[in-house]
């Protein structure tokens, strides 16, 4: 059975990218949608009340003075388009938040989950009854609570840690866990633990060579895992000219051994590309979420082969 899959990843809280993702099936003629990890945003932008209907907002180090309700709505949209979360506050609360990282974390959790909930509702509104399937697997930047919100959805299927039978009959394993990063994110672990995680899923596959791996982190030294080398202060060394592979060695071994049909990845936004590891087609479509551009990949799959594929810029 031939199927057309659209895969995108690392949309990091961008409303625009989520809406585009939901529309991508119809736009590209895909019948199944797969979203890789890192759905959630990285920053909260305070809208600081200045009295009356006035707010001061600093976005990308540019100060905006908001004076009307329309401007407020427009600014919220602009902030959301970059995947950031607008937060209405006042100077007193800001001072309090500066002293209390726990309170900031609580705001993050509240805003992240609110947006994921809105996204699930939008997915239901747009796709319920269309027959379009969405498979989603949060990534290392996504807090665990995100999974619970997705589980509640009737349109979006949570794929983390499972062998999922796609509508086309292909088996897919999925995980958003990554190898260790300098940021100590929500879902990361040592390579041996990753190896065990992958093996637990691979051992359940009935036809491993016709399966799909949907693993957030790319395989080590695949060319899809090149990121700037950082110093201990997380500063790119040599002005970002020194690129190093940061993918997972455990995943690479798993792909080399299992030789699935297709392996889908994200995590390294600048690692856009495709390659082959043995017979396996390996894809990282990259991410430009902050520009509201949905990078993705269309893959036409036959029963036991990849018939065609292309990376997209939508």
């Amino acid at each position, binding site marked *: 059975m031939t199927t057309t899959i659209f895969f995108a990843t690392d949309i990091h809280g961008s409303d625009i990218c989520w809406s585009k993702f939901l529309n991508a099936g119809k736009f590209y003629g895909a019948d199944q949608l797969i979203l890789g990890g890192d759905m959630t945003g990285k920053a909260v932008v305070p809208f600081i009340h200045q009295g009356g209907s006035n707010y001061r907002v600093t976005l990308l180090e*540019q100060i905006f003075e908001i004076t009307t309700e329309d401007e407020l709505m427009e600014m919220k949209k602009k902030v959301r388009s970059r995947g950031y979360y607008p937060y209405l506050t006042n100077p007193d609360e800001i001072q309090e938040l500066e002293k209390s990282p726990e309170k900031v974390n609580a705001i993050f959790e509240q805003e992240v989950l609110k947006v994921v909930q809105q996204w699930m509702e939008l997915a239901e509104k747009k796709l319920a009854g269309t027959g379009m399937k969405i498979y989603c697997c949060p990534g290392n930047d996504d807090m665990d609570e995100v999974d619970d919100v997705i589980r509640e959805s009737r349109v979006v299927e949570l794929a983390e840690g499972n062998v999922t039978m796609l509508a086309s009959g292909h088996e897919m394993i999925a995980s958003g866990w990554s190898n260790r990063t300098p*940021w100590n994110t929500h879902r990361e672990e040592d390579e041996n633990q990753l190896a065990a995680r992958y093996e637990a899923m691979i051992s359940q596959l009935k036809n491993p060579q016709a399966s799909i791996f949907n693993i957030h982190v790319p395989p080590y030294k695949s060319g899809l895992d090149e990121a700037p080398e950082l110093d201990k202060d997380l500063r790119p060394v040599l002005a970002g000219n020194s690129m190093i592979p940061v993918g997972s060695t455990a995943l690479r071994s798993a792909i080399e051994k299992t030789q699935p049909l297709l392996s889908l990845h994200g995590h390294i936004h600048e690692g856009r590309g495709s390659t082959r590891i043995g017979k396996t087609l390996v894809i990282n479509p990259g991410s430009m979420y902050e520009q509201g551009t949905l990078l993705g990949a269309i893959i036409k799959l036959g029963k036991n082969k990849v018939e065609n594929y292309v990376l*997209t810029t939508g």
Partner: protein
Amino acid sequence: MSDLFVRKATGMVRSWSVFDAFIYAFFSINLVTLGFYSFSQMYYFGGGMIPALIISAAFIIFEVVVYASLIAVMPRSGGDYVWQTRVFGGGIGFILSITGWWFTLWLWTPIYGDMLRQIVLTPLLGAFGFQEAAVWIAGQGTPLFVSSLLTLLFVALVIFLGMKSYARVQKYSFYAGMLGLLIVLVLLFTGSPEKFKAGLDANSASYFGTSGSLYEPTAQAGVDAFASTPMTGGTFGLIMVTLPYLVFFNLWPNWGATLYGEVRGATDYKRNFSGMAWALGVTTLLAIIFFLGVNRTIGWDFYVQANGAWWNYAWGYVTEAPPLPVWPNPAMLAVFLTDNRLIQIIVLLLMSTWWFGWAGTLFLSSTRVIFAAAFDRLLPEKAAELNDRGTPVNAMLYMILPAIVVAAMYAYNLAGFRSITLAATQGIAIMYFGTAIAAIILPYKKKELFEASPIAKMKVAGIPLITVAGLIFGGFLLFLLVEWFFDPWLNTGGVPPGLYGISIANTNSIIFLGSCYAIAAAIYYGFKSKRKSEGIDMDKVTAEIPVE
């Protein structure tokens, strides 16, 4: 007061050092390789070199604004190819970028090879006493081809080792090269014309086996070659006419410009701008100091005449080799001011690092654009294939094999290839022109993208800065293109090849450039048609998905 709360998440890196960014941009407008080489070829102009340097830098600063702005709006996107594709759509971006970053780089290979032998091999062989080898490698035909092959070998080694290693080589080369240049400048400013004349005769005899006095015969050969470029002065018109040649040296502060990690704001734009702008400013200043040093000791007139004497021979206008039988490398002429051979060798080695720290990136952008096109399925999948070591073998072959052919044509001057040196700049400038147009219209064609960028509020009289900078830089490029294609020398009844050698009167140049664009168009439309037959609509995969 906090204006942004950020959580721990992948990729939240801090800004890189502006000084590091400066080093890489500084090496791209490389004073010792591109600079010394192009200055020497510009021996027949009427505009002063110092005012030309200043005026060209004043225009090129707008190039820096354009590229820093585009990087801020579309970071991590891979440069001209993606920017143009995003703003114009598929075809134009592909054809301009593939030609500019891929095909044109074939022609740069023998030019890099020429610099390798003139800057590194010839003086060092001479310094170590290999007189015949030193003179042979400086000669025409096979020596240039051999040097081009050595260049390709070095570039292949860099790609094989990877940018992680080479970026460090570049940084060490910066310090070594600067030390070498400092010593050269000290020699130039502390020497005297008399000492130079004596040193020239003695050392040239020792290095290259010449005999007798070289100064007067060299100067006369330069006069016969109509060497006349002044250091200062010249009318504004004459100075402007020098710019289409001078940009061979300084049009590249954006080379390899990139930005990694999350863009947090306008500061990132300023850091990127600063790295490139400081590189342009410091290089321009160093070039002026170098000219003043040359004038003090070597003598400006002799410097220009020696260059004229060499290039008149190298370009085949005369068949008799000049009295100094090698390129008058100014660093070598400066070390002739000391009699200490060990110091000479150390300085020449230090000055060689300007080439080694620069030449390794010859195919860096080419590899990126080949990969980007392959990922867009506009080249075969194998083009982006990596071997077990992670080396892009096929992309390397796509560069190296045609480069060998072009290097041979250039070295042996087949089809008049040696006259089209500036086409190497022209091809990239045409691509830059496309990027300048993209920058001009970006705020209007991609309004939402622009409005949500860190440069949205940067305006001049209400017009976005990127548009204003794009208009000035684009206007400058248009001027260069008009001068190149409609050479002013030919318009006044002069005979080809004219001032720049790449006018419409030079059929070789037009055929080369035209062939490059024709091949690019054939690849684009050929693959587009192939993918269509496979059920992939290439227009659709780059079109924006509706949001609503």
